[in-house]
């Protein structure tokens, strides 16, 4: 199936003259009607925004001539002469989907007049020769923009200082620096490099042993050994999965209303950790996330993984309480569109829901072409009571071992359940008999008090038991499920929603992909399928000009602080252009040719000479390139909230491994609201109680709540964690006083300082040894003489103030270092 875009454009932006010819000459009565009933209303209520004197013609619609009305605006003709019910103008006046004029609905009689007028065939003497030209998308012209050009494989440039580069990457950077007459700063020292690469790849600081091993290793492969060790660690998967989560709107809650638990979301998070850990080829990674459910799988775990991967399109902020289900569907599709646009294409597709993109060659037809695929894969369903919807989930296939383990759990659970049930029957029986006794007793019987007391006890016990039974029933071991996409039984093309409104459908658009970034005709969508697989293949195709570029640029940004294209999420015409276009293409090509391996790319990048530069400023370079766009030094980065918390736990040696699993602990009734399902709302959850050890696991394993947060994850609120309603490939690095209060006073820091202090005291008797150890642990470098002298002075000065309490004394010192720049930045 091919889609003719030009055909659609003609349909929507039909030329005015084509309509003008249809008009039979209006009669005098008709024109009188226009002058009496229509023109005054247009002048009073419409011209301000839709007439020649308007500063900006709203919606591109002119209502000061008949041609203007017929040509319509961004969303098509405003009237169909003779057919009032098909005319957008009338819908707008009726406040049906669109509301015009915005100040308030016009009187019913006025709306009737317009209806009559349209039915008459739009008699209108107003002529206009200044109706602006239709804005059409010129796809061919749009393709000339750099980001839509095919990815190139440029020859690495020659450099004067041929001895300097270690990798071709270095040649691309050095050539630009040399051309500008810029010199790089010196290489970073080995301690700094180790701390940098360890944070960048794993989000954790190097241990004392790792520092010692590296510093002692004088072989030429020393750095490679470190990088290979880091890339092979699970910590690497944990860190880079979190980067990806920023692009998904991930949370353990479905929406922002009532804290409805997204009980399967963690499976997608664990899928990501595993995918990065195992270096799943990125093209495969993309396909799985868009259409894993439609892909063939050879094994049961692979099938389960494929299904789980589509959680990418499910986990965002979904307003599941929206009572208007058509709107819910359209809104959720829009979230999915924004996600696909941002994560893979670097395009703001969300803008195109209502109108052609104002700056980029993406039209509503592109939007609804992809949206049709998503609409053919419904992702929510309404629950039988109340107004709520829930995310769709799919049962995951189990291996025989997994099945056996689950059945075993179920049997155990069933036993417990039977005991509880029996207890309930017993207590109910006793209550009955006590009540019967009470009824038989005379008023002043002395047994009465005792019996009443017993009855109240029983009532209380039964109440508790009922809640426990609900809880047990609700969380009994079940077949594993994941929030996942699946094709509907009736996949279909969808209409353009005019102004994004599902009640104002326009022309139906064939499902397809974004024209400007396509290299051939639209993919064939087999009958009975949504088209997601075709979308996935288009996204992950080597010929797609955006995907690889956007991906390598984002990886670059994580290491170097800024992307080669600094607007990492937006490669459109209003975004930034690449500082090193050839390098960007070199990396993209290299990435794809290396089987889309992220680890191979990372390995090359962190072993490059340019990555190993020091972060020191240079006055003369600053003058020529103050923003360090040409990379004459390394950019410093404040650690993310997760890295700060994880590092604190690492330096106090409290950090514990996690196998993943649900973030929110359902076993704890404190975390669950009323489960009895009496009301119209689904049960709601809070994060009151953590699992044992969760407090000491990496931050990625803590539940992400959309509304309330507990003390264990408060740090995310202070250090620029991406709000889970947001899709953002780069975190901001704000500097606000509330962060300082956190560093100064929060228990997360205070407790770690205490534990670290006590460890130092237990480990070394001599202050000098403690100091050496402390500096290695917190700053990952040896202490200087000057620092040592000052630290001793600090301890001496402070000692009388803390009544010489050693633990407190050292806690203050540790806290002081943990709150300093050198701990919360990586340079």
């Amino acid at each position, binding site marked *: 199936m091919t889609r003719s875009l030009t055909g659609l454009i003609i349909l929507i932006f039909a030329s005015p003259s084509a309509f003008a010819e249809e008009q039979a000459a209006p009669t005098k009565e008709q024109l009188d009607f226009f002058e009496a009933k229509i023109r005054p209303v247009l002048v009073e209520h419409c011209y301000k925004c839709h007439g020649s004197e308007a500063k900006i013609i709203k919606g591109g619609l002119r209502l000061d001539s008949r041609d203007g009305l017929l040509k319509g605006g961004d969303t098509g003709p405003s009237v169909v002469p003779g057919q009032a019910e098909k005319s957008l103008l009338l819908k707008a006046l009726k406040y049906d989907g669109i509301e015009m004029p*915005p*100040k*308030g609905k016009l009187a019913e009689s006025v709306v009737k007049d317009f209806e009559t007028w349209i039915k008459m065939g739009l008699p209108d003497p107003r002529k206009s020769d200044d109706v602006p030209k239709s804005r059409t998308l010129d796809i061919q012209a749009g393709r000339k923009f750099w980001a839509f050009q095919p990815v190139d494989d440029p020859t690495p440039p020659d450099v004067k200082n041929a001895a300097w580069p270690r990798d071709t990457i270095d040649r691309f950077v050095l050539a630009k620096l040399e051309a500008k007459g810029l010199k790089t700063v010196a290489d970073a020292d080995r301690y700094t490099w180790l701390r940098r690469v360890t944070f960048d790849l794993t989000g954790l600081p190097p241990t004392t042993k790792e520092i010692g091993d590296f510093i002692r290793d004088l072989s030429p492969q020393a750095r490679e050994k470190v990088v290979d060790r880091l890339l092979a660690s699970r910590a690497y998967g944990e860190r880079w999965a979190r980067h990806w989560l920023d692009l998904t709107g991930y949370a353990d809650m479905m929406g*922002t*209303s009532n804290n409805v638990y997204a009980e399967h979301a963690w499976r997608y998070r664990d899928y990501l950790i595993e995918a990065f850990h195992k270096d799943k080829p990125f093209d495969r990674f993309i396909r799985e996330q868009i259409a894993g459910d439609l892909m063939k799988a050879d094994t049961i775990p692979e099938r389960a993984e494929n299904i789980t991967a589509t959680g990418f399109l499910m986990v965002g902020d979904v*307003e599941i309480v*929206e*009572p*208007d*289900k058509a709107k819910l569907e359209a*809104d959720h599709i*829009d*979230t999915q569109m924004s996600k696909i646009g941002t994560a893979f294409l670097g395009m*703001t597709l*969300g803008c195109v829901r209502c109108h052609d993109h*104002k*700056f980029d060659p993406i039209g509503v037809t592109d939007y609804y072409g992809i949206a049709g695929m998503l609409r053919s894969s419904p992702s929510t369903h*309404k629950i039988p*009571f*109340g107004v709520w919807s829930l995310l769709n989930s799919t049962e995951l296939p189990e291996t025989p071992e997994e099945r056996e383990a689950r059945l075993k759990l179920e049997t155990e659970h069933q036993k417990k359940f039977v005991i509880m049930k029996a207890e309930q029957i017993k207590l109910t029986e006793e209550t009955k008999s006590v009540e019967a006794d009470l009824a038989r007793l005379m008023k002043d019987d002395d047994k009465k008090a005792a019996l009443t007391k017993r009855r109240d006890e029983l009532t209380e016990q039964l109440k508790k038991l009922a809640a426990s039974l609900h809880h047990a029933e609700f969380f009994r071991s079940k077949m594993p499920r994941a929030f996942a996409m699946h094709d509907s039984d009736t996949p279909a093309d969808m209409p353009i929603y005019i102004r994004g409104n599902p009640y104002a459908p326009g022309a139906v658009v064939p499902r397809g992909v974004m024209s400007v970034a396509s290299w051939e005709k639209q993919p064939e969508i087999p009958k009975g399928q949504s088209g997601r697989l075709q979308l996935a293949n288009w996204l992950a195709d080597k010929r797609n000009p955006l995907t690889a570029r956007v991906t390598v640029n984002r990886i670059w940004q994580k290491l170097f602080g800024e992307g080669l294209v600094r*607007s990492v*999420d937006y490669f459109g*015409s209003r975004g930034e252009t690449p500082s090193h276009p050839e390098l960007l293409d070199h990396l993209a090509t290299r990435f794809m040719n290396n089987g889309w391996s992220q680890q191979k790319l990372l390995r090359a990048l962190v072993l490059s000479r340019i990555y190993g530069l020091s*972060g*020191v*400023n*240079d006055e003369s370079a600053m003058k020529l390139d103050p923003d360090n766009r040409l990379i004459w030094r390394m950019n410093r980065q404040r650690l993310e909230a997760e890295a700060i918390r994880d590092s604190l736990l690492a330096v106090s040696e409290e950090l514990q491994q996690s196998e993943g699993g649900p973030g929110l602990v359902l076993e704890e009734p404190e975390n669950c609201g009323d489960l009895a399902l009496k009301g*119209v709302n689904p049960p709601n959850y809070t994060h009151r109680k953590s699992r044992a050890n969760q407090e000491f696991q990496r931050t990625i394993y803590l539940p992400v709540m959309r*509304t309330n947060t507990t003390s264990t994850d408060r740090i995310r*609120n202070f250090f620029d964690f991406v*709000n889970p*309603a947001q899709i953002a490939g780069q*975190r901001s*690095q*704000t*500097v*606000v*006083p509330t962060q*300082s*209060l*956190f*560093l*100064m*006073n929060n228990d997360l820091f*205070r407790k770690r300082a205490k534990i670290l202090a006590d460890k130092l005291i237990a480990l070394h008797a001599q202050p000098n040894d403690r100091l050496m150890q402390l500096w290695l642990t917190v700053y990952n470098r040896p202490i200087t003489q000057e620092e040592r002298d*000052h630290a001793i002075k600090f301890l001496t*000065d*402070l000692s009388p*103030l*803390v009544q010489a309490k050693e633990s407190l004394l050292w806690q*203050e*010192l540790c*806290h*002081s*270092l943990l*709150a*300093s*720049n*050198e701990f919360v*930045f990586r340079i």
Partner: protein
Amino acid sequence: MSNTRPTITRRQMLSTAACGFGSLALADIVHAMNSPTARISGVTSKAKRVIFLFMAGGPSQQDLFDPKEFIRKKHGEKIDSPLRKEVTQVGTEKFLALGEAAPVKPRGQSGMMISDLLPGLASVADDICLLRGMNADNPQHASATNQFHTGVFTEVRPSMGAWISYGLGTENKNLPSFVSIHAPGVRTYGSGFLPADHQGTPLTVPLTDKTLPIENLKNASPNDEIQRKRLELTRRQSQRLIDELHGDRNMEGMIQNMELAFRMQTTTPRLVDISKESKDTLDLYGIGDKETDKHGRACLLARKLSESGVRFVQVTMDGWDHHGDIRGNLPRLCKQTDQPIAGLLKDLKQRGLLNDTLVVWSGEFGRTPWSQDLSGTAPIEKHGREHQPESFCAWMAGGGVKGGLTYGETDHMGYRVVDSKVHIHDLHATMLHLLGIDHTRLTHRHLGRDFRLTDVHGNVVKEILA
């Protein structure tokens, strides 16, 4: 990320370093952090600051300001539904008209309609401008709350307080320009893509000794002297790295903020302390009375902050989400909030502050004229009302709006606005206008686009300007 850096010079920094921790004048630090980024005027401003009273949950406009004879007469009877068939509502299937909970009567010279439940507000009717044609786009709390604060309900964008701080800068160098008391969620005071110093500072009115007005405000060390010594070392180590790197603005900002945070530990409790207020003032706000104490304290604090030059103070009072028993619940909420709010208006007026302080009262939406009964069995007198963004009421006072004016009209049942509609975007445009900001010119470039609080919408409601 790059535009969030404070602008203290290196020379200033070194002078701090020389004098030790806590020596840099607080004013300088805050001034440097809050230097106005964009001053977008074009209109003469009446208002210098805003107090926004946010009634979270959606108060019922039918019961408070916009009663309908049609509904009163049909009380308990079935009426025709104006809802689209695709829209699901629960507990409204019977579609029964629900008359107002208490009499709503004309007040003041102007004859503005205000419920008996709000005697305090009724006594200042001629000072307020009632907007009866409010209109929003979403019937869910979270989305509607986002729209009310940021203009949109899906994306994360800066809240209006942040925009106003961004547009006007600070009036007082010693205080943040945007404070949100009892904030209903991060997104309502977030600065989005605007520089972070325009983010609201969330504040809790401490009702017990254990509550901190701002998180982590309590010194973690045994005493101030120990903490000062600890921070001195932190500063020294931080500065050492900056020197080694030949400067870093983010890192310098961290040091300055630590200075400021250190001071906040003592200035904030002083600011929220109301023990020195006169008995008359406390009584005016209902402080000390069990029901009005919390909101009374919040309103008094709002006045103090405004008076000290905070540009945008928000006070959130929640609990208005009356799906059931509105006749029982609404009077309770009115009792809790009426005296504090009326007290605030009176206090502002007597101090001559009302002229240049714009007070805005609103919920995120209103409630339906028809009843809701989630149990399906309750008698009509125990019914509540469902959410309604199509029409609701808000009011403004002071700061250049016409007092005593009732603006906007809804249809016979109080569902749709039929005249003088004020959409959230229009309200935002008008608020900015009153502050001297042209809402179409207050923009910030992000992802290739110039964003506005009013997006591509918004009309200043000229009719309500004094």
